[in-house]
């Protein structure tokens, strides 16, 4: 890791020196390099920088896009806003890949991004609230909204004939947003939410929470939490007390560590996870390995690559590094019509755009933007079978 960091620093230094004559374009990469998801962000940033490396010296008239990293902290809105302010005013970035967590992303978009007219593409902010912020068209995301996941989960349950569930969610923007979205979709499908109660992460004892959940009289428990946190405690306690033995999990709860901790009692548990088994996802793994990344299939890495790639293509389509011009072309390159572009084909896409053609960027996460500028999102329906999460189908 250290070597990698050192190498990338040197590389960044060299490219900086080589293209210091106006041939470099800066793009902000603002992610929570410290904070609760600090274990994920280095790989996400590396994936975004991979897209820049792939197009080095090929954008517009031989320009290279370089990353300027900044720390969103994931939780501290003031620090994230200050970091974004620095990127925009001092570094003069043309666009921002980020931010990561829903709370800070909202803060940056409202306070800095939109007022300055800078395009932002978040790879991982999934709160439904971001769909309706006043973004004047400058905020995009390659991650789907949890409103979509709530709908998908509700549909999965409908197909299985489950009509009454208890819901528990981690007490933050993610958990609350998902629980609300799921509740609305589930009721629209004719289901009944027996109880919807928050739980705090990081407690040793969840017997009171489980007691309240089970008292409502549902047979299934939907857990919208984190796999290494309260979510696991709730499931363990439910099984211990015999309160529930059938679970429904959202993306934050999908992880092999859960099966390892709970064991065979989890068999038959159903869940959803963003992602697809498209050609782009497989291609991204190849590109990431070839590009020398430490990992090739971490959470939100495909979305990060796509976020950076989209902005680079939009820049080419606009034939300008002007911030507003980039924004105006985002939807064009993301959606049909045009030639489909997968990871590793960015150079080809640039050529097509240069010659006046059109592209439809599919990328690693099968990008299709809705009219508000967020990924429509495909989800994998999973079931725990023989001690593993197995994909049933893609929705």
């Amino acid at each position, binding site marked *: 890791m250290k070597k990698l960091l050192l190498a990338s620093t040197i590389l960044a230094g060299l490219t900086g020196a080589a293209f210091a004559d106006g041939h470099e374009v800066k793009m902000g990469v603002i992610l929570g390099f410290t904070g609760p998801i600090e274990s994920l962000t280095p790989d996400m940033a590396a994936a975004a920088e991979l897209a820049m490396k792939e197009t080095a010296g090929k954008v517009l008239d031989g320009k290279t896009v370089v990353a300027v990293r900044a720390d969103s902290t994931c939780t501290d809105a003031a620090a994230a806003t200050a970091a974004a302010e620095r990127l925009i005013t001092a570094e003069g970035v043309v666009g921002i890949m980020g931010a990561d967590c829903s709370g800070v992303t909202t803060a940056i978009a409202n306070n800095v991004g939109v007022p300055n007219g800078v395009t932002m593409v978040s790879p991982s902010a999934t709160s439904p609230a971001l769909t309706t912020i006043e973004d004047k068209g400058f905020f995009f995301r390659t991650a789907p909204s949890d409103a979509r996941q709530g709908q998908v989960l509700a549909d999965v349950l409908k197909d299985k004939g489950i009509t009454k569930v208890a819901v528990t969610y981690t007490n933050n923007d993610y958990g609350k947003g998902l629980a609300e979205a799921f509740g609305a979709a589930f009721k629209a499908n004719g289901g009944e939410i027996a109880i919807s109660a928050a739980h705090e992460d990081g407690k040793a004892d969840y*017997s*009171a929470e489980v007691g*309240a959940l089970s008292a409502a009289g549902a047979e299934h428990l939907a857990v919208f939490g984190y796999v290494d946190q309260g979510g696991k405690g709730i499931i363990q306690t439910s099984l211990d007390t015999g309160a529930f033995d059938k679970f429904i999990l959202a993306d934050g709860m999908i992880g092999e560590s859960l099966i390892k901790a709970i064991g065979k009692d989890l068999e038959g548990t159903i869940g959803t996870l963003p992602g697809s088994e498209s050609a782009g996802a497989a291609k991204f793994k190849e590109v990431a390995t070839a590009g020398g990344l430490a990992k090739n299939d971490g959470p939100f890495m495909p979305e990060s690559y796509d976020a950076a790639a989209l902005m680079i293509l939009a820049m080419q389509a606009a034939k300008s590094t002007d911030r507003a011009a980039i924004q105006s072309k985002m939807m064009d390159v993301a959606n049909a019509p045009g030639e489909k572009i997968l990871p590793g084909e960015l150079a080809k896409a640039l050529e097509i755009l240069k010659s006046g053609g059109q592209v439809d960027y599919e990328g690693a996460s099968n990008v299709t933007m809705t009219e508000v500028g967020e990924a429509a999102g495909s989800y994998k329906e999973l079931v725990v079978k023989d001690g593993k999460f197995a994909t049933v189908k893609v929705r």
Partner: protein
Amino acid sequence: MIDFLNALVLFANFVLIPGLAYGSQLALGALGITLLYGILRFGNFAHGDTMAFGTMTVVLITWYFQSIGISFGPLPTALLALPFGIAITAVFLVVWDKLVYKHYREVKAPPIRMVMASVGVMFAMNGIVRFIIGPNDQNFMDGERFILKARAFKNATGLNEGLAIKSSQLLTVVIAIVLVSALFWFLNKTRTGKSMRAFSDNEDLALLSGISPQRVVLVTWILVGALATVAGVLYGLDKSFKPFTYFQLLLPMFAAAIVGGVGHPVGAILGGFVVAFSEVMVTYAYKKFLTYLVPADYAPDGLMQLLSTDYKFAVSFIILVVVLLVRPTGLLRGKVI
């Protein structure tokens, strides 16, 4: 009749058994606080972190035992590690006494200064524990997890509701009873115990009758170390070990000590159960319980929950405030803090 049994089993499974185990853990913790208050005359804020330190040593020794293949059959290996953990924690506490509290005793500092010193010790211990074992959850329970499984109970009795008893819950209650009996025997029957009580009642008179204060202080810290380590290990076995939750236990433990009457060992035990059962009973949703008991027409629609489980900690606060306002000496007439 079946409905009545179902209601009873439901109540036992979600309120009675968890409450008994949690109450025993709080009682042991509160005993340590009360003992220290009675004899050394200050409220020890570092008690939660003492528990964390003691549990941490036991966790580390348990891991070592597991790595060289020692186990305790169906019982958790941690019980074998417990005596070593108690010894290390007792030494740790005595060192802190020499470094910090001894000075304040010698200058006859007012109790509030001792309390503030213990806040400092608390933060230091906090850091030491996190430095050694880290801030994350550690699970060190092994052996047989259940005495009675919910599903097995349902199959055997044919009732709708299951009853689960974890081995850690039974262990907690049994060990708490043994330890508390031993403590009372020690305080009431042995020479050292009597001299400690004399010291607690009247320090000057005790000194005049030839009781060695150093010895009383030393034995007190050893007892506190033992109580804290046992309480922490039982809590960790039953739930899980995480330094921050041990720090948070300080509030219900203090509430328990004060409710019972601070400085009063029986009161600490009583207080532990009062606080534990209040927390569990106030936040439990009685919908299902009542549905079994009342005729179908009167079955409640709502959850019948007094307070959301988010407010569990508020319960200790409310008890603490009410007792301090209404009966500051506590249920059993302890000292006034």
